[in-house]
């Protein structure tokens, strides 16, 4: 029961943090968001480092690590919001690796793992996805549906239309078109996708907390740093609570995906709920902690707020995860007089 990273993981985290803080500083995020562009140079670089395929088997050109390592990268991506399609590409690949046929894997994974092509993810209702995380150049999408299935959509054959959302730090599109079922365990694929997303959300919450804490230490009102007012101080303490809750749940889910599939379903649902609620609350509080400034376009809190809002919808709402979780626990409690799940 140890949450510490091993040496490889520490190195991955260190590299990711340093690289993204340098290459995706907040003025760069703003530039891309305002121009509606992706940072292709940075994406090329990340692909050379093998990031999109970090959790993909070496057989398909990936790095052969697991979801824990991907989560480490995504957490840093959540902290820094680089304008690259890392989450959709990596999770689309993960979903295909988990639930795709051999043929599907051979066709799509090498391209996704190396970043030669980029991926898209979203949820489809009646075959149409209104808002997928999907760059205009994405080649393939994995669309989950409400019945627990997932389709693979070759975007060359689909109608992909850019959608402006409130979050300009990432590209979104609607997707409509024919797809083929992923024949494998699509629940396991979905659980990996929400677990990965919860890592990104942890990063979002984490940075929002950092921004708020820095601001309230500095900003004065009535002659005192506002962070010395208990109402503000306790608000920041609550932000830490939300962030660390998200982090605990997200690590656990990533670990379960790699090491204990039997725990994945509940762990992923918990991570989904904790990270969406955590990130939305924390990013809202970040705006509040900044006062009027926090509400302006020129300040940075809103980027994190907006990403949190989009991630909260990207793979369905948390109410579905709650319903699923309740079912699962009720079954378990019903089945055993004694709860000995560990």
């Amino acid at each position, binding site marked *: 029961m140890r949450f510490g990273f091993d040496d490889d993981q520490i190195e991955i985290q260190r590299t990711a943090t340093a690289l993204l803080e340098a290459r995706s500083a907040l003025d760069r995020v703003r530039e891309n968001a305002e121009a509606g562009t992706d940072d292709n140079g940075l994406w090329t670089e990340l692909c050379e480092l093998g990031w999109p395929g970090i959790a993909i088997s070496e057989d398909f050109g990936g790095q052969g690590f697991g979801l824990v390592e991907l989560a480490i990268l995504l957490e840093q991506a959540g902290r820094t919001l680089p304008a690259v399609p890392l989450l959709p590409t990596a999770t689309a690949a993960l979903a295909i690796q988990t639930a795709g046929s051999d043929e599907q894997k051979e066709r799509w994974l090498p391209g996704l793992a190396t970043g030669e092509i980029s991926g898209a993810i979203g949820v489809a209702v009646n075959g149409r996805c*209104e808002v997928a995380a999907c760059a205009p150049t994405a080649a393939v999408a994995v669309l989950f549906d409400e019945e627990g299935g997932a389709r693979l959509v070759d975007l060359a054959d689909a109608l992909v239309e850019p959608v402006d959302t*409130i979050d300009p730090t990432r590209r979104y599109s609607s997707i409509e078109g024919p797809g083929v079922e992923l024949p494998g365990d699509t629940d396991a694929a979905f659980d990996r996708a929400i677990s990965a997303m919860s890592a990104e959300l942890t990063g979002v919450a984490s940075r929002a907390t950092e921004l708020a804490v820095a601001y309230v230490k500095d900003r004065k009102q009535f002659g005192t740093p506002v962070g010395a*007012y208990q109402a503000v101080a306790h608000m920041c303490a609550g932000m830490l609570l939300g962030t660390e809750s998200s982090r605990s749940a997200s690590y656990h889910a990533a670990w379960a995906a790699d090491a204990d599939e039997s725990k994945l379903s509940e762990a992923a649902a918990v991570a989904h709920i904790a990270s969406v609620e955590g990130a939305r609350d924390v990013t809202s509080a970040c705006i509040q902690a900044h006062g009027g400034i926090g509400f302006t376009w020129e300040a940075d809190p809103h980027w994190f*707020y907006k990403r949190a809002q989009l991630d909260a919808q990207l793979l369905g709402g948390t109410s579905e995860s709650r319903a699923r979780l309740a079912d699962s626990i009720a079954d378990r409690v019903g089945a055993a007089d004694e709860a000995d799940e560990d």
Partner: protein
Amino acid sequence: MDLTFSEEETEFRDELRAWLDANHPGEEPAGDENAEFAWRVEWQQRLNEGGWAGVHWPVEYGGRGATLMQSAIFFEELGRSRSPLPGNGLGLLLAGPTIMAWGTDEQKDRYLNPILSAEEIWCQGFSEPEAGSDLASLKTMAVRDGDDWVINGQKVWTSAAQWSKWCMLVARTDSDAPKHKGLSYFLMDMEQEGVEVRPLKQMTGGTEFNELFIKDARISNDNLVGGEGNGWMVALTTLMNERSGLAFFLQVRTRQLLEDLFGYANESGKIHDPCVADKLAGFYTRAEVLRLTAYRGLTQIERYGQPGPEGALTKWMWSSLNQDVTQYAADLIGPEAITSDSHWSYELMRARGNTIEGGTSEILKNIVAERVLGLPRK
């Protein structure tokens, strides 16, 4: 206790409803802030022609001389009919009443009528970047120079400044006097070189607000209101005025969002999910409590001439409710609600400002604790 409207009030409301039905401004022009503002100015002109612009203004100044209650009804009906606030809202709610209360006869003659007709638009120069919630630490200076005052400083959160002819400006006229004692209240002409308006973009992408950079701007001493050094007191009257009518308008707007959400839940069939029904009922309860508490506040003022605890609570209730309703709307409607062309996405983002603008929730709770409950300050 009589929670109906009186006969006169019902008549007033029915007359207003009929007028609003016949004169509804129609759909807001989308996407262009100048066009939207022009539309709201036209709306005020139409209101004025119908005698509905200065509802709460005394008859002698061209108003309707409405009671507090009628004024509340006016704003409720405005919201209910989905009409916008009049374009010169700050003039009607703030500048006019301040000038009536504190202004000289000359000031009344000169300024009131163009406010009503929206010929001259007004903005409010109170907040400063360094001051935030702390009005007493304002830094904008006014220095006497012959018959004029020379102004230097910076203001922020001035809505409508780009269209304004006049600004209600609070500036420091005595830097030796302690805190709020050295402040004075001016009417500043915006059409002069020393005043630069820069739009302040919000997280919504809109530019409801501006920054004001004031460099050697001049104000004639005739445009001082309420006398030198009384700026704090004059400003306070105005702030009180701003809140009461607006509160009813905002309350209704949130209620409409909630009714729209009920409508959506009905049409989509989601209302049959007990979780959805439970949530919506919880919001409705809060909306209803807000409405009732706002009216209780009016009763209190009518009876005792001053606001009771209710008044301090309604802004807090409203801002938190509006944030929760708009967030839940996004959850219920799904990703379509957070695309840029959904009005829900605007409502969601805009709501984040509710707990900040017009006094942050933290400041409001301080006020409740100190002024209503009499708790000690540290």
